[in-house]
């Protein structure tokens, strides 16, 4: 299979992502799904807008997949990230990996999600039940967002 890295604006088709990494050689397939949580840092969330520096995000996703393929010895890596307005419980990211052995599948899956969270220029603005919204800063600094 060809490694897959894409940004989409529609709901992610988890089965298609799984299929992209399923081969007769792979005894283990692992699918990671990131989803919008109803409560984050104690605040009630009603939805999230995902925005990206799209050209660079696409390039970084592809770089991560290429590096994973080289480091873990499998071509079966698929990453799809969704952009736009997502409701609670909707899937923002799907990462599927396939490998003959589960040890490597787990390590590979984890490597990809950590790299994605560290490097890919995607941002999320949470909407709260009190009507405010704010860009999330995982580094813990006060966001530049304001009620609108």
């Amino acid at each position, binding site marked *: 299979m060809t490694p897959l890295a894409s940004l989409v604006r529609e709901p992610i088709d988890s089965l298609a992502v799984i299929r992209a990494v399923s081969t007769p050689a792979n005894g283990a397939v692992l699918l990671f799904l*990131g989803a919008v949580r109803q409560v984050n840092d104690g605040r009630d969330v009603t939805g999230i807008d*995902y*925005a*990206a*520096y799209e*050209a*660079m*995000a696409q*390039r970084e996703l592809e770089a991560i997949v290429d590096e994973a393929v080289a480091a873990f010895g499998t071509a079966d890596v698929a990453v799809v*990230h969704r952009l736009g307005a997502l409701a609670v419980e909707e899937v*923002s*990211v799907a990462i599927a990996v396939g490998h003959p052995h589960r040890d490597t599948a787990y390590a590979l899956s984890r490597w990809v*999600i950590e790299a*994605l*969270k*560290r*490097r*890919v*220029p*995607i*941002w*999320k*603005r949470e909407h709260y039940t009190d009507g405010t919204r704010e*860009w*999330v*800063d*995982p*580094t813990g*600094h006060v*966001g*530049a*967002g*304001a009620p609108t």
Partner: protein
Amino acid sequence: MCVYDANAHMTITLLLFASYADALGASALTVELPRDSTVGDVLTAIRSRRGADRLPPSPLVAVNQRYAALSRVVQEGDEVAIIPPVAGG
């Protein structure tokens, strides 16, 4: 005598995203700079704009869609971006 030399200057497009775009009220700025300026010089050039005080002292930056150092020299036509803390996933 000081003569303006167009060839000694260049135009750089600076992209802004998410909280940084909100802070400066724009998703792209055009900056006029001397040749051989660095990404750091681009940032210095916009520091006087309203809202620029909400940018950190040394933000992450990218040149032509790749992460770069603030010391990176930019060229006419380069796509320079300031990258807020990423929050994908």
